[in-house]
């Protein structure tokens, strides 16, 4: 039916030019406005899609201020342009704060005509520091059509084996309230369990606490999908309170990073990067020194001044050795001068042991010399004991509380249990009603926890999530959770600033937040989502915020008066003794195929898999490998040679009874006998982009959780590795290893000129080193204008009449750029290592490039360099992938890199995006 006909048939115009037009129809009001959700399809004006209709409904309800609707009329204070100055068609900006993928962000959202379109950091916020991939992509997540529950209404219910019984929130609340009442009357709620994740939202914590107050025996379980909550354990042990780490590297002179990724994927990395860069200004400012010892390659590793590959099992001993070395120096041990007649650090004649000794020696001396300006950052993957030892060492050095600070978590006082304890309780038959709030535990839980079986044992299960995912499909109820851009929320960041998350649009899919759902279930007196949050804000402020204060808080996104608890720098506990032997170095020839160590990394884009349905993020090339649409087993060339396997062939990793098979991606610089793999892939019910096996959309990548266990979610030790000769073609936006000898040599030669880098010493000796030969090719400057021939444009450029016109230019400081980082690998990778690394660097430079910023055909640019236009092209990867002729993401071929994209790059098809 055409639009024309439809508007004839229905009084409500299907395109509303104004709200009054939309609201003007009495039929509309009668038929739709007084119902929360239109139920029967026949009531829809024909020609308007249901979802579109819901949006219109939502908008009209809110704006018309109809009593009884969920979102009463509420004014959101715009950030920059006040309503009276608002120009239709012009964007307006609003401050917001939300927690996304484990980190709190303080943001400005740019909206057009009521649609959030772009996210930027809130630069007036004291802790603002850029945005990351997840934040940029959150806009795409908001408009993801797969987020909805199909065409069957917003709430799904299972009856028997049939799903998709169309139902409503009210139906659920009736059932849910009954369950709560029953649980409350029966042993104080013992039969009720809620599974959630750690949160920095005081409102969520408050509502969970209210739930706990109502059902004191109920199980509230919380688990961190990435590392299982190591940082909380360590801080609980050392500081007495669960805290989150925050790094101010601008105060650091020497930074030692052990198995962590503070500039990359660790929580709080944006602020750490910003402060790190403040101390990396070789021309006018100061330069800190960054030491990194890590197993695989991280972004932090690429930024290191000196990097050493260390097996994770040796890292605690390594840390202990550093501690002992510093102690020795403190005790007055003299400084040996080794600086004469040494081979270069990456010289192939140096043994791995000598290299490690020299690294440790220099590191220890530097740390000692820097004193309280030195900091040690230990990765949570190494476990709570190692992190605690790191805290202890920083305390000793004096950098705890200045460089490394710990802010108590918002949910520090909440009594929670672990996922394993919850599963035990279920297996014991204690739980009658289980509610799971997001996180898709079926996928993100460690392999040794059988979540599916546990869900099967519970009589009544409820899932609240943004997608109808793998976990949701097993539950009796699948409820839509609202997206951070469409919900009222709040959060406390690592510096203790409290911030409100304002909805920028009404929930497109009729979702609700966890706090809201709890409020409804426990029949709290306040169920309005804004008022729930506002009540928390009042509590934090210790008084009832005046309307003016509230609006100011919304407007600014923070308030100096509203802060969480202060950072803790008193160490109350002691760290467990670290191993006393010196860290062992495994030579390439001694790699034991039965003693591999597998490091589980967080992919740049998918996080724990929750963003798998975001085509733009799938398309985003991973750092180092430039891999898109899938994961691989990253191993060093020496390790691969020892195993007798090559790039592009599968490797089987077995741990106990479980095994996984992944294609090998050779990356020089990975510690011997170590494999790094990305989590979050292999989802079977992510959506039409990230994998939906029910609809023949294959999963993207391979799920590695079978060998990931509760005791160590980040690293698996003692894994058996065996070659497996099936072949695989990676969808990378760059070939590193498929490259022929000739190309490799040329790449290395050119990269030296394309990517110019030097040392502080070189800069002091030759400040213009970047423009001297052989770094710079000789460019003859001849003729009047310094170029080879006369060009009319030069006349124009010199014409004073055009002086008023700005000449736009950009400068990119590679000393600060995290994306364009060559790595001087210290592993035994010889020149190949450098070339590959430079190759990567050259790319990055290109993409952040000359006048332009792109990656490949199908890929979006690295997030860091792309944002504003991405909104448009964002849709592309997404689409590209669904495009019938496109290769399925799960079978990545060259083609998939070709035009997915990018530039979405031509396939790196994301296509492109842009600046």
């Amino acid at each position: 039916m055409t639009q024309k006909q439809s508007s004839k048939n229905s009084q409500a115009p299907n395109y509303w030019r104004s709200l009054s037009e939309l609201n003007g129809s009495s039929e509309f009001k009668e038929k739709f406005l007084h119902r929360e959700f239109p139920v029967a399809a026949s009531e829809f004006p024909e020609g308007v899609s249901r979802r579109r209709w819901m949006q219109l409904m939502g908008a009209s309800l809110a704006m018309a201020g109809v009593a009884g609707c969920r979102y009463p009329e509420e004014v959101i204070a715009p950030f920059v342009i006040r309503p009276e100055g608002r120009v239709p068609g012009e964007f307006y900006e609003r401050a917001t704060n939300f927690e996304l993928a484990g980190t709190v962000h303080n943001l400005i959202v740019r909206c057009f005509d009521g649609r959030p379109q772009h996210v930027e950091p809130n630069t007036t916020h004291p802790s603002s520091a850029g945005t990351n991939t997840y934040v940029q992509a959150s806009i795409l997540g908001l408009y993801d059509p797969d987020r909805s529950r199909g065409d069957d209404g917003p709430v799904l219910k299972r009856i028997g084996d049939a799903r998709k019984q169309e139902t409503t929130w009210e139906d659920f609340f009736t059932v849910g309230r009954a369950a709560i009442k029953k649980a409350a009357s029966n042993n104080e709620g013992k039969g009720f369990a809620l599974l959630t994740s750690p949160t920095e939202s005081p409102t969520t914590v408050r509502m969970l606490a209210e739930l706990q107050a109502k059902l004191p025996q109920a199980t509230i379980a919380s688990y961190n999908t990435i590392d299982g909550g190591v940082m909380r354990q360590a801080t609980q042990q050392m500081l007495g309170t669960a805290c989150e780490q925050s790094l101010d590297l601008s105060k650091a002179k020497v930074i030692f990073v052990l198995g962590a990724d503070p500039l990359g994927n660790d929580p709080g990395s944006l602020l750490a990067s910003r402060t790190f860069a403040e101390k990396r200004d070789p021309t006018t400012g100061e330069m800190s020194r960054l030491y990194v010892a890590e197993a695989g390659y991280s972004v932090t590793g690429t930024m290191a001044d000196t990097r050493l590959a260390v097996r994770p099992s040796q890292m605690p001993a390594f840390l202990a050795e550093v501690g002992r070395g510093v102690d020795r120096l403190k005790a007055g041990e003299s400084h040996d001068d080794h600086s004469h007649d040494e081979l270069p650090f990456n010289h192939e004649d140096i043994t791995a042991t000598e290299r490690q000794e020299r690294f440790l020696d220099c590191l220890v001396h530097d740390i000692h010399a820097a004193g309280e300006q030195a900091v040690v950052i230990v990765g949570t993957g190494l476990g709570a004991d190692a992190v605690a030892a790191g805290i202890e060492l920083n305390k000793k050095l004096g950098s705890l509380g200045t460089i490394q600070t710990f802010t108590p978590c918002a949910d520090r006082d909440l009594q929670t249990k672990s996922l394993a304890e919850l599963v035990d309780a279920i297996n014991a038959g204690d739980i009658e009603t289980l509610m799971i709030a997001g996180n898709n535990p079926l996928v993100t839980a460690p392999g040794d926890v059988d979540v599916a079986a546990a869900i099967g044992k519970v009589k009544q299960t409820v899932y609240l999530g943004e997608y109808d995912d793998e976990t949701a499909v097993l539950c009796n109820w699948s409820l839509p959770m609202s997206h951070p851009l469409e919900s009222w929320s709040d959060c406390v960041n690592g510096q203790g600033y409290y911030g409100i998350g304002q909805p920028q649009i009404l929930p497109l899919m009729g979702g609700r937040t966890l706090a809201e759902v709890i409020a409804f279930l426990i029949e709290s007196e306040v169920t309005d989502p804004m008022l729930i949050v506002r009540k928390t804000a009042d509590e934090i402020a210790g008084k009832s915020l005046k309307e003016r204060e509230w609006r100011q808080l919304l407007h600014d996104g923070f308030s100096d008066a509203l802060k969480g608890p202060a950072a803790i720098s008193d160490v109350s506990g002691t760290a467990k003794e670290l191993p006393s032997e010196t860290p062992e170095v495994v030579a390439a020839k001694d790699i034991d195929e039965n003693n591999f160590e597998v490091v589980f990394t967080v992919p740049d884009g998918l996080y724990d898999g929750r963003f798998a349905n975001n085509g733009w993020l799938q398309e985003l090339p991973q750092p180092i490998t430039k891999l898109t649409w899938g994961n691989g087993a990253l191993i060093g060339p020496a390790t691969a040679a020892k195993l007798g396997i090559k790039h592009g062939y599968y490797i089987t990793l077995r741990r106990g009874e479980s095994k996984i098979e992944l294609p090998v991606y050779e990356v020089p610089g990975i510690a011997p006998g170590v494999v790094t793999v990305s989590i979050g892939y292999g989802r079977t019910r992510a959506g039409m982009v990230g994998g939906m096996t029910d609809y023949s959309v294959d999963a993207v990548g391979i799920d590695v959780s079978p060998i990931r266990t509760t005791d160590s979610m980040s690293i698996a030790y003692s894994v058996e590795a065996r070659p497996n000769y099936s072949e695989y073609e990676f969808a990378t936006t760059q070939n590193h290893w498929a490259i022929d000898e000739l190309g490799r040599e040329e790449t290395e030669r050119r990269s030296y000129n394309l990517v110019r880098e030097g040392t502080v010493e070189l800069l002091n000796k030759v400040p213009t080193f970047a423009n001297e030969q052989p770094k710079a090719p000789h460019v003859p400057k001849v003729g009047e204008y310094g170029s080879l021939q006369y060009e009319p444009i030069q006349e124009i450029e010199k014409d004073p009449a055009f002086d008023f016109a700005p000449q736009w230019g950009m400068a990119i400081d590679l000393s600060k750029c995290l994306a364009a980082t060559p790595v001087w690998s210290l592993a035994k990778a010889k020149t190949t290592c450098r070339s590959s690394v430079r190759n990567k660097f050259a790319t990055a430079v290109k993409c952040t490039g000359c006048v332009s910023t792109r990656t490949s055909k199908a890929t979006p640019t690295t997030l860091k360099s792309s944002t504003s236009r991405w909104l448009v092209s964002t849709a592309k990867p997404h689409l590209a992938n669904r495009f019938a002729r496109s290769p399925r993401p799960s079978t990545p071929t060259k083609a998939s890199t070709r035009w997915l994209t990018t530039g979405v790059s031509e396939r790196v098809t994301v296509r492109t995006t842009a600046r």
Partner: protein
Amino acid sequence: MSLAIPNGLDNTVERPGERAPLVLGNTNYHDITESVCQVAERKPSAGWVGGFLVAFALLQMLGLLIVYLIYTGVGVWGNRAPIFWGWPIVNFVFWVGIGHAGTLISAILYLFRQEWRTSINRAAEAMTIFAVACAGTFPGIHVGRAWLAFWLAPYPSLNLWMWPQFRSPLLWDVFAVSTYGTVSLLFWYMGMVPDLATFRDRSKNKYRRMIYGLLCLGWSGSSRHWMRYEKAYAILAALAAPLVLSVHTIVSFDFAVSQVPGWHTTIFPPYFVAGAIFSGFAMVLTLMIPARSMLNLEKLITIRHLENMCKIILATGSLVGLAYGTEFFIAWYGQVPAEQFAFINRAFGPYWWAYWTMVSCNVISPQLFWFKKCRTTPWIIVVVCIFVNIGMWFERFVITITSLSRDYLPSAWAYFSPTWVDWGMLIGSFGLFFTLFLLFCRTLPVINMAEVKSSLAKQHHMAHAAAEHGEAEH
């Protein structure tokens, strides 16, 4: 393979003081008319019908692929960054090159009074037109928005308020190829007018007579007609001759004017022209040798014709070989690192197979033509010519794709792989070519009867004179 030469005379042997005959046997004017007209007049042979069906099917495939392409987007090809130009441009340049022989044979050899051109010029010209048609297909569909391809034409546009970019070699290309196509078509058609009149006169069918009658523009064979015809033909030949040189020169500018290492060379114009003549002659031979035996035209298209063309192939093939060597020398001598790498990469990089296919087909295989045996044995000629055709296609592949695949920034490097659409379109373009060629064989005079007759006249005259001379000596 021995070929019976009807009068026992090997017309490839040079006899002092004597011109080799270009028409063999006791052929008279009527025989020529008969043997040429029978091609179109007799019932189509099974071979022709089969060939036509195959070619036509391939043409349909090309059509469908073009529809698919335009509907879907040019991403259905293997092109991708940094190889923004892939097979379509390779095919375009290949076909433009093929289109060189016809007008060269017709115009330049005409101006140089090379009589041996007469038996082959018509088919070669037809081939030119068809090859240009094939070539012309590609640029039009190659652009991202094919429905706006007409924007390449300089016309005062109210939509755009602007002209095309006159500094762009792509625009020059549009001019060069369309001019060449137009002039070649006119030249071909003009030359055909007297023969079309013959066809008209021999037509027994009313419609045929009407159509040929229209086409031959009322030719009556009067002296005045002949005089005008000769003048116009000479003028057109003079016009067409520089075009032969200009069209591929300008096509080469598409590459030479750019700054892609491996493209940015001054040798391209002569090198492209030599290569084009080379491939054009090879294609003429590839088609003419089977055609002459299938259509019983051995007396008119003699071994001498074939041998002469082989000599040209040998010469141009060696020129092309020299150009390959010169490119390397200049790359080394020029000391531009990117340029040096581009050439080393061609020969020893990932596309080494394409490069060495090209060298062996284009430079090594024609060297067989130093041997007379090879120049005069049709099957050897066909084999070598097919190699040359393959080699010349690869030459364009090597130039276009290897240069683009690795230019300045290693991070942008990639390896090209064609898709099924690429293959389909290459094969489909042959379908277009052969469909047109087979239709031509059946409907138009495949040999320039009028001119062959004139050379026969000269041959008779000379034979007569020689006989007289001999008598006198005796």
